[in-house]
């Protein structure tokens, strides 16, 4: 990943800026001037971290060895659709333009580039990417490429037409309009595009059914991916790894095909390996409590208290007593999981 820290910081910046831009949906409702300016500024400034992320994506592809296989097709089309959706959105952050385009078809055009481009395309990419790992079966490439092509073409045709319709004045949230308006052809085009997207999902269902009926076994790492999940068999066993793998980078499988292991965790007691915060050096074996009935009892007691509190607020006060008792019973330690005090205390040091 090119510029990994920049991407992480940009995502955090996106999250923070997102708290201060939602009013850009309400320019046309009549806002104070200051409100308009503030939310226009924050809506536009989100283009900076978003732009950093997008340029880092492009630089990652440019500096890497891109394998243009099915998952990558989805990801590249995600970039393209999402950038169009994003640029058409930043335009709307400008109050004068937004007042022109509010409630026209251009806004649904924009949001569908964002939604289908930003959420559905990567979702489908993730589906074809991890399907072999999840099921142990490969999806067929040819129907996969056909599905991708139908989806991409359908998206451009449908939502592109909506941009043009909105710019020529068609309002959104209408199911019909006078015949005299010059919108017939483009609406027909948009409908054909929408049916094309629908057809792409029929092809996907066909492909999934085919993998079910005529399975093709998936290798451990069909894409040559770097993530740790690709070191497990396909599908992974419930315990994931026989031995805990050791990770020294963000792309462990590109460093070594079979990562070296971590040994020495107990097998008669579940333990979680705790590492140091910054260096991630193994630091502690934290025993995990045994399975227990008390969480269930705590849930039941909480439910009873909450239901009773509908009828009387007294239920909260009196219910706190059995709840506290349940919590103590749940958290009270049951067995020895560390050296005893006489082995570690000052007495031990003296003897």
């Amino acid at each position: 990943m090119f510029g990994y820290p920049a991407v992480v910081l940009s995502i955090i910046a996106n999250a923070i800026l997102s708290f201060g831009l939602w009013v850009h949906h309400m320019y046309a409702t009549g806002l104070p001037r200051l409100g308009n300016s503030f939310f226009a500024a924050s809506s536009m400034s989100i283009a900076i971290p978003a732009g950093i992320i997008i340029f880092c994506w492009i630089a990652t592809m440019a500096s890497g060895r891109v394998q243009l296989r099915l998952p990558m097709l989805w990801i590249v089309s995600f970039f393209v659709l999402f950038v169009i959706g994003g640029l058409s959105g930043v335009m709307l952050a400008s109050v004068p333009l937004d007042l022109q385009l509010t409630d026209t078809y251009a806004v649904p055009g924009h949001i569908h580039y964002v939604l289908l481009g930003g959420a559905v395309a990567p979702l489908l990419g993730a589906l074809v990417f991890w399907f072999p790992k999840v099921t142990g079966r490969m999806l067929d490439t040819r129907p996969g490429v056909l599905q991708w092509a139908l989806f991409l073409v359908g998206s451009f045709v449908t939502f592109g037409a909506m941009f043009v319709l909105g710019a020529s004045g068609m309002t959104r949230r209408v199911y019909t309009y006078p015949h005299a308006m010059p919108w017939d052809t483009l609406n027909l085009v948009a409908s054909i595009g929408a049916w094309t997207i629908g057809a792409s999902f029929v092809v996907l269902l066909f492909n999934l059914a085919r993998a079910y009926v005529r399975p093709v076994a998936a290798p451990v790492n069909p894409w040559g991916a770097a993530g740790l999940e690709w070191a497990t068999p396909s599908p992974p066993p419930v315990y994931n790894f026989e031995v805990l793998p050791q990770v020294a980078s963000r792309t462990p499988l590109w460093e070594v095909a079979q990562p070296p292991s971590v040994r020495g965790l107990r097998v008669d007691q579940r333990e979680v390996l705790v590492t140091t915060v910054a260096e991630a050096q193994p630091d502690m074996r934290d025993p995990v409590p045994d399975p227990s009935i008390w969480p269930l009892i705590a849930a039941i007691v909480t439910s009873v208290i909450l239901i009773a509190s509908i009828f009387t607020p007294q239920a909260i006060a009196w219910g706190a007593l059995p709840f506290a008792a349940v919590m103590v019973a749940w958290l009270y330690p049951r067995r020895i999981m560390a050296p005893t005090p006489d082995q570690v205390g000052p007495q031990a040091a003296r003897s």
Partner: protein
Amino acid sequence: MMPGQHIDVTVLPTYRFGHRSPLWWGTVAFVVIEGLGFIFVIAAYLYLHTQNPRWPINPPPDLLWGSLLTVLLIVSEAPNVWTKRAAQSQDLRRTRIGVLVMAAIGVVAIGLRVLEFTTLNVRWDTNAYGSILWVLIGLHTAHLITDVVETLVFAVMLFAGPLDARRFTEVEENQAYWDFVVIAWIPVYITMYWLPRWFAGG
């Protein structure tokens, strides 16, 4: 870390102190969340102050019991720190003494809090001032009771067992929670007792 070499973690301990313990991170996150809760309630109190021409609407709480409790809480930091250090040095005898002392202090603190409730000079359902005052002291009382119950459980645990060195980490974090109960009380005390006296009227 050296890639290519197997790591053996058999020698690693099953407990740690301070920021090397997951329990410490849990305590920090808890304090952040609950500390924000206190900040929000104090902000609500101050907001209501700005919205009412007469504040406090009723006479402010009497000083005696709340101030005695404040003194007790501040003084209790000495045995609290002592107990925390005993736990960190994994000294069972001193840890037992410290937890018993802190449990006794906690019970006395709850007693003072009960008396404090009798001199608030307003009911929770009288007006907005009464409501926010009870929320403020109620939030702190919830933490006070929680930590005292926790300390009593540890007092039992340190004698009844099962005793292993993980108890020392747990006591360390229990005393860190008491730090929070004390530190959170100071701004609440000033807000409840002194702001209405310093800025009486409107």
